[in-house]
């Protein structure tokens, strides 16, 4: 991955050629390693001034901690000038870096105040730090780019599950919700209608359903079979009231086939009529 931005040109020692005021299209410096047709993608090839500087340093195997600042500055400015000669839009960061390099270069030329130069006093120190920092993340980015990636390198498995039966979970209901809903119904009914909903013994209505339900299976049942003595007096009364109410609502009929025969409770409708 070291060669990512390096064109396959043969290595050459940097030759001190000035390009700045010449015609860059015909007199490209040989150490720029960028063929004219590639200049178009220059800005996309380098991720900014730090990237370009790193390229210049790494390409020549220079020590990043002891960058020959004059030489690197010369090359950097050559690139920048070339871009401008070609009227390519150059990000402001590139020009700013050129200024920084020029400033470092001039400070390097100043006579050193002391003989033992502290590393921190090195005018290049800040630039070197930034270059190193940038290079770390540049490499980290390449590493992330190479990680096995979902749907590019590795793929999810899709296994059919149509044979899997999914039981439905039914909602749970609180009786209070049912009752409060009913309360609303009654309030509405009171407001709009003449509906008289009076107190009824629910056990009677319940028993009405039970009798009807029994008549679903047999078209008729003997009256006395519907009155179970084991329920006690009150149970018998409930059943009796239920049968009377069913008869009143025309849901059953009470018949006697012949005098003194068993009293039958028969459901209304086709089934009942056909009963022998």
């Amino acid at each position, binding site marked *: 991955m070291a060669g990512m931005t390096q064109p396959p040109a043969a290595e050459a020692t940097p030759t001190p050629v000035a390009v700045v005021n010449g015609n860059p299209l015909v007199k490209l410096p040989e150490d720029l390693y960028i063929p004219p047709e590639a200049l178009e993608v220059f800005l996309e090839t380098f991720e900014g001034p730090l990237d370009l500087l790193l390229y210049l340093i790494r390409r020549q195997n220079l020590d990043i901690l002891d960058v020959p600042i004059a030489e690197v500055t010369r090359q950097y400015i050559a690139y920048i000038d070339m871009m401008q000669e070609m009227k390519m839009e150059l990000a402001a960061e590139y020009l700013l870096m050129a200024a920084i390099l020029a400033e470092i270069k001039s400070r390097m030329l100043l006579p050193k105040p002391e003989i033992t130069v502290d590393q921190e006093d090195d005018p290049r120190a800040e630039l070197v730090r930034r270059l190193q920092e940038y290079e770390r993340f540049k490499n980290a980015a390449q590493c992330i780019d190479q990680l096995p990636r979902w749907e590019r390198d590795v*793929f*999810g*498995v*899709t*296994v*059919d*599950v*149509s*044979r*899997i*039966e*999914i*039981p*439905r*979970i*039914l*909602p*749970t*209901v609180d*009786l*209070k919700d*049912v*009752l*409060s*809903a*009913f309360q*609303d*119904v*009654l*309030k*509405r*009914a009171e407001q*709009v*209608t003449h*509906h008289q*909903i009076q*107190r*009824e*013994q*629910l*056990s009677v*209505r*319940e*028993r*009405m*359903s*039970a*009798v*009807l*339900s*029994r008549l*679903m299976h047999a078209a008729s049942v003997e009256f006395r079979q519907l009155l*179970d003595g084991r*329920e006690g007096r*009150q149970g018998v009364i409930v059943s009796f009231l239920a049968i009377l109410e069913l008869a009143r609502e*025309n*849901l059953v009929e009470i018949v006697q086939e012949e005098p003194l025969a068993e009293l039958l409770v028969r*459901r*209304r*409708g086709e089934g009942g009529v056909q009963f022998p």
Partner: protein
Amino acid sequence: MNLKEIVEAALFASPRPLTVEDLGHLFDDNERPAAEALSTALAELTRDYENRPVQLQPVASGYRFQVRAAFSPWVSRLFQEKPARYSRALFETLAIIAYRQPVTRGEIEEIRGVTVTSNIIRTLLERDWVSVVGHRELPGRPALYATTREFLNYFNLQSLDQLPPLMTFGQDEWPVSATLADASTVPSPEDVG
């Protein structure tokens, strides 16, 4: 990396069944295996997966890996949705059936003042909270609905009498707990029907 492994990888990755022809297209023209070779690979894979949780299943549009039905009790939980909530209309309908049974849909609608959807009736029948106990002898012979023993069981009631009496309507709060505690003296209808 042999042919069988490539076929296996593709069948696992594919979101749809793959035919022998589809599998052939995974390869460049000059490297495409013969259809027989692919069929052989499929046959071998089918055998390999015979007693596995996942099986290779031929369907109309090709081959696909499938999770065996036997794993439904566990695997189904991955796909179970949170149960929906029932509508107020359903509660109202259920309450009217409980208090006014046996009752037809038309009668419920008359009390509610709005239509009762088939959906609600179906849900109540599916939950086995109501059942059809007969038909009214009217045009269309409408079904008569009543609550079931399952309804009583679900709501922890011994008999309908344990529901609050209609008299107490109009109060702001239902005295539900009080009513439920008041064990009814009316015998349960268990012996009937």
